C-alpha cells in the first residue's frame, strides 16, 4: 500500500548540494574544556584544530561570537553553536520585551485567549528605564515579594529579593554613586520581576526544572526537545520569612554549592523521569500531561516571539537551557533561557546525561550528512516544531485541528536513545545502499 503523497509534510531542513558531500574528517574547534571536549574528541572522524586553523565546526563561548561573525567567512557546510544575536532570547530584559511585543501581536491577530497563552512569565520591568511603571504595579499589590535580577549574569550572581521600595531606592543610590566613581564599569541593567510566592514544593523544598531545547533554524522555525533534563532542588526548606537567605530561594546548582548545608554527595538533582513519575503518582497521568503540554507551549511561544528578530543564519544552531518553575496550581512559569547551559557535570549521572545530550545534538546537526531530513526523532531529541506543530503519529499529516493530534514531545519520558540510534543509522545505511 503506497502512502498518499503528503504535501504538508516537510523535512526538517538539511543542507543541500555541496554541503551534503561526505567529508573525510571534520575539523572542530572549541573553547570549552568540559563534557563538550570529551564528546567532540570521541566522535569518530572528528579532529581538533587549534588557534588559527580552519575549522568546520566550532562550539564556542558567547564571548567569542563577535569576532567570528564579523571577521570570518564561513563556507556553506560550516556550523557554529550560537546565533549572532541570541541575546534577544537569553538576556532577561530583551526576552521580556520581545515576549510583550509578541503577546500584543497575538492579541491583535487572534484575540485575548490566544494571547493569554503567553502569560507564562511573571510581571517584569526593566530597570532603570521602566522604574515608574514598576512603582505603579508595586503600589497596586502591596506586600508581595519581588526579585531583582541582573540581565546578563548567570549562576545566581547579583540576585536579591525585596518587599519594600526602600530596599531598592537604597540600592539605586549605591549603584549610582559607584557609577560616578568608576566610569569604566558598564551600567548594568536589571529587571524587577514578581516573585512566585507559591512554588510547588517537594519534601518542603523549592525546585526548578532545566530543560534542553535545540534550535536548528529560526526562519523557518525548527526546534527539537530533549527527553531528559533535571529538577534542581534548593538545599533548605522553603519559607517566605527568610527572603535574605539566598540559598533558600535560588535553586541554581552554583549557588547551592556555596550553601553551608551543601553536601557534594547529594547532588540535589532529580532526573526529569523521576520527577514526572512522582507527579503522576501524586496527581494522576492526565494532570501531568496537561502540565507538560503547557511547558511545550512555553518553549514554542518563546521561540516564536524572537523568530523575526534573530538574525537567521544557516550556519547557526543553538542549544538552549530553559529554566522552568512550577507553582502550586501546577502552572509552569518561564524563569529564563540560557544560551550556554552549564555542561560541566556535577555527578556521574549528570555526566552521562550531558554526554548523551551533546552526542545527540551533534547527530541532529549532522555534519556527517547521514540524515534524510524527514526524521522526527534522533536519539533523545524529538522534533517539536517544524515551521508548524509536529504530530507524534507516524506518517500522519502534521495538521493540528485533526481530532487525535498529539504533539511529538516526550519530556521526562523513557529515553531509549541507544536503541533508537542503532535502528536509525542502520536503516539510513540500507537506504543509502539501496539508492546508490
Amino acid at each position: 500500500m503506497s502512502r498518499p503523497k503528503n504535501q504538508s509534510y516537510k523535512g526538517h531542513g538539511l543542507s543541500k548540494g555541496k554541503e551534503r558531500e561526505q567529508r573525510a574528517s571534520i575539523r572542530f574547534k572549541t573553547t570549552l574544556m568540559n563534557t563538550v571536549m570529551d564528546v567532540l574528541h570521541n566522535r569518530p572522524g572528528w579532529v581538533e584544530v587549534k588557534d588559527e586553523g580552519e575549522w568546520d565546526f566550532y562550539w564556542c563561548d558567547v564571548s567569542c561570537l563577535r569576532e567570528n561573525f564579523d571577521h570570518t567567512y564561513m563556507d556553506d557546510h560550516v556550523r557554529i553553536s550560537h546565533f549572532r544575536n541570541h541575546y534577544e532570547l537569553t538576556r532577561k530584559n530583551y526576552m521580556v520585551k520581545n515576549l510583550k511585543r509578541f503577546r500584543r501581536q497575538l492579541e491583535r491577530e487572534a484575540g485575548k485567549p490566544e494571547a493569554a497563552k503567553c502569560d507564562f512569565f511573571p510581571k517584569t520591568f526593566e530597570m532603570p528605564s521602566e522604574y515608574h511603571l514598576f512603582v505603579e504595579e508595586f503600589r497596586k499589590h502591596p506586600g508581595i515579594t519581588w526579585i531583582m535580577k541582573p540581565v546578563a549574569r548567570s549562576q545566581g550572581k547579583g540576585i536579591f529579593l525585596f518587599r519594600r521600595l526602600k530596599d531598592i531606592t537604597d540600592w539605586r543610590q549605591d549603584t549610582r554613586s559607584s557609577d560616578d566613581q568608576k566610569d569604566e564599569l558598564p551600567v548594568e541593567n536589571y529587571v524587577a520581576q514578581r516573585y512566585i510566592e507559591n512554588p510547588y514544593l517537594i519534601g518542603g523544598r523549592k525546585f526548578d526544572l532545566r530543560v534542553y531545547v535545540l534550535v536548528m533554524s529560526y526562519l523557518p522555525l525548527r526546534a527539537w526537545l530533549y527527553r531528559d533534563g533535571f529538577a534542581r532542588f534548593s538545599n533548605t526548606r522553603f519559607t517566605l520569612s527568610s527572603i535574605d537567605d539566598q540559598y533558600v530561594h535560588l535553586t541554581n546548582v552554583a549557588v547551592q554549592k556555596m550553601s553551608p548545608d551543601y553536601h557534594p554527595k547529594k547532588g540535589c538533582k532529580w532526573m526529569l523521569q523521576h520527577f514526572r513519575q512522582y507527579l503522576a503518582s501524586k496527581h494522576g497521568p492526565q494532570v501531568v500531561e496537561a502540565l507538560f503540554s503547557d511547558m511545550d507551549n512555553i518553549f514554542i511561544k518563546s521561540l516564536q516571539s524572537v523568530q523575526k528578530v534573530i538574525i537567521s543564519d544557516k550556519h547557526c544552531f543553538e542549544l538552549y537551557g530553559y529554566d522552568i518553575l512550577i507553582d502550586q496550581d501546577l502552572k509552569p512559569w518561564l524563569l529564563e533561557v540560557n544560551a550556554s547551559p552549564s555542561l560541566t557535570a556535577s555527578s556521574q549521572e549528570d555526566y552521562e546525561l550531558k554526554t548523551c545530550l551533546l552526542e545527540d545534538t551533534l547527530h541532529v546537526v549532522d555534519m556527517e550528512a547521514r540524515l534524510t531530513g524527514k526524521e522526527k526523532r534522533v536519539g533523545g531529541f524529538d522534533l517539536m516544531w517544524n515551521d508548524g506543530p509536529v504530530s507524534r503519529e507516524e506518517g500522519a499529516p502534521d495538521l493540528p485541528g485533526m481530532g487525535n493530534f498529539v504533539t511529538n514531545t516526550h519530556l521526562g519520558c523513557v529515553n531509549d536513545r541507544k536503541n533508537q540510534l542503532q535502528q536509525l543509522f542502520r536503516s539510513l545505511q540500507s537506504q543509502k545502499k539501496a539508492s546508490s
Partner: protein
Amino acid sequence: MKCHRPRVGPGRPFSSCWRPVPAAWRARAGEMLQEESDLSLLIAQIVQKLKGSNLYAQLERQAWASLQRPEIRLESLKEDIKEFFKISGWEKKLQNAVYSELNVYPLPSHPAAPPEHLKEPLVYMRKAQGSWEKRILKSLNSMCTELSIPLARKRPVGQQKELLNKWNEMGTDEPDLSLFRPVYAPKDFLEVLINLRNPNYENGDSLSFRTHLGLIQVPLKVKDIPELKECFVELGLNIGQLGIDDSTQVPPEFFENEHVRIGQKVLAEQDSAAAQQYIRQGSPTALRAELWALILNISSQPEDLLYYEQLKTNVIQHDLLVDSLIYKDVKLTASNDDYYFVFEDYLYQVLLCFSRDTSVLGHFAYNSASPPKSYIRGKLGLEEYAVFYPPNGVIPFHGFSMYVAPLCFLYHEPYKLYQTFREMYVRFFFRLHSISSHPSGIVSLCLLFETLLQTYLPQLFYHLREIGAQPLRISFKWMVRAFSGYLATDQLLLLWDRILGYNSLEVLAVLAAAVFAFRAVNLMEVTSLAAAEAVLADLSTLKVMPLLQIFLFATVT
C-alpha cells in the same frame, strides 16, 4: 495462612475417585471435624480481636442508627440489619478487616500451644533470637553509659517549643552525632545467622547431597522453582504484568488500559481481597497509593490523625536516646541517596513517632523477637518499674530509615505515611531482622536464595565460593532492606506490589538469585570478593519483573 482444604485436581471425574473405602472415609471425616474445630477456633480468635477495634464500635453505632430506617422490622431484625450492612458497604469493611486479620495472624497450630509457639515454634531459634537481643541491648546500654546520656529524659519547655517550631524541617538541624554509632549493621546480623545451628541436626563431616555449601547451615524447608512457579503463577509468561507489558514497545490496548480499568473497579468496590489478587500483576502508578491502603486495610479516620498528633506530642515532650540513632541513620543513609534526600524531613516525622507508638507492641505476639525491657533509674529488676524501651520495642539499626523512604513517593500527609509504614512494618519488615523459621523470615529467605543459586546456577555458585565470595555476603544487604535504595524507585514499588499481593517476602530471595543469574557471565570472570561486589554494586538500571519472570519461568530446570 495455611489452607487445610484438600486441592481437587482438574478434570478428574467424580466417579473415578468415589471408591468406598471405609477406613479412609473415616479418616477424612476426622480431618473434617478437626478442620471444623480449627475453623471455629479461628473465628473465635478473630471475633475476639475485632471486638476491641474501632470498626466494632462503628458497626454497633450503625446498627443502632439503622433502627430508624423503615426497612428494618422487629420480626426480622437480624436479617434486616444484615441486609442493611450489605447494601451500605459496611459488610465489605468487615470482610476487609477479617481478611486483614487472616493475612497477618498465623493460624494457631494447636489450641494448647503456648504463646511462644506463635512467636516461633522452634526452641533453638527462640534461644538464638534471645541472645541476639541481649547483645543489642548490652550495646545500647554501654553506649548510654559511655556518653552519659539517659535512655530517656523529659525535654525542658524551651526545647519543646523549639522542636515544635522546627517540626517540619528537622532535617536542617545538625546535632553532633559523631559519638553515636548505629547499634548494629546488617553484616553483624549476618554473622549471627551464619552461626545458627539446629542441635538436633547432625550434618556430619562428609560431604553429601544434603550438605549446605552456603553460609546458612540450618535445614529449613524452602521452595524450589517448580513450587515457586505454582505459588507465583500470576507472574507467568503468558500473563500481563506491569513492569513488562507496559513498556514503550507494547501498545497500551494489549494490556495496560484494561488493567487500569480493572484497578479502578477494584477501588470502587473497596474489596481488600480483590485488590490483593489484582496487585499481583502490578499496580498502575496513579492507583498505587489507594490500592496499598486498601490491601493494608488502612482507612484514614479522624481518630488516626488524632493518634498521630498524640505521638507527635510524645516526641516533643520526651527525648529518647533512640532519637539520636534515628537521626544518625537518616543522615547516613536516606539523606545521601540521590533520590530520597528530598524526603528527609518526612523520615524524621515518621520514625520519631514510630518509636513512641505502643500499639506496635501488639506485633510481638507473632514476632520471634521480644521488646527490650528497661527499668526506671534505681529500680533495676523490679517488675513494677519495668518499661519497654523504646516504647514501641523496636531498636533501629543501620539502614532502617530506608524502609520508609520509598513510601514518601506515595503518601504526602505525614499521618497517612505513618500509618502505611507502621502497617508494612508489622506485616512484613519485622521479619527481615528477627531470627525465626517463618517462610518469610530472613533465615528462610537467605536459605532460599542460596538453595536456588546452588541448584540452578551450580557453576556460578561454586566459582564464587572458591574465590571466597559467598553470594549471600553480597545479597544479604539487599534482602534485609527489601531492596530499598538499591533499585530505582519505580522498580522497587513494582517489587513491593508483589510483596503485598502474595503476602510473602519470598520474592526478595528470588529476585536476588535472578540478579546473580543476570550478571552471571561477568561474575564468572571475577577473582575476588571485592570484584564480585563491584559487578553487583549498581542495581539501579535493573528491571525487576523481566528478571523475575525469566528466572522463574524461562530458565531450563
